[in-house]
């Protein structure tokens, strides 16, 4: 159970309702993800993620300097 520091009932309830693990978690993960990563190489996924993270950091820095 997640007990938030401010006792957020909303968050605790939401998290609890999702913390269920399937009998076959690997199968469940692959069924959930479905075609999301289909046809993409792992190296490309990793590089895309890191590029997106760098872009997010630049946007964040831009927002802060505008503030």
């Amino acid at each position, binding site marked *: 159970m997640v007990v938030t520091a401010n006792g*957020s009932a909303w968050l605790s309830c939401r*998290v609890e309702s*999702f913390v269920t693990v399937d009998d076959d978690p*690997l199968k469940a993960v692959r069924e959930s993800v479905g075609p*999301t990563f289909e046809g993409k190489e792992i190296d490309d996924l*990793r590089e895309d*993620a890191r590029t997106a993270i760098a872009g997010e950091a630049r946007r964040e820095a831009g927002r802060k300097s505008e503030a």
Partner: protein
Amino acid sequence: MTAVYVETDFLFAVAKSDEWLSEEVESVLAEEPVETSLLAYAEFLVAAYTEDDGFDFEVAPLVANMLDLVPLSSAEEEELLLAAATYLDSHDLTPFDALHAAHAATRYGGVLIGSDQAYDGRSDLDRRPLTPD
């Protein structure tokens, strides 16, 4: 048995059934305990997220199952990641916003100082602006 650290590639191979490494991953999972970091999960979530459409799947159930296979090093970190996943399913937040929000909500009484207005209007978060909005 001491766990082996796995990085983001391993998470992708867990999730991708069409990946040639998926059988290797299954062997590792069967043979030795593995652990990863919040950083690896953050990269995984960023790769699955698109700015226009968000995620194609419900994040929290996926994360719960992923954590059963590839845990983090502490229960506190797992709670934080599940909280972030919950934010992603419930709010229009980017993966990084959700992780920041989860840190604030689970460890800092919901108080967050920052200029990003993405956190506003949420009952469990109290954003205090870095500068006047």
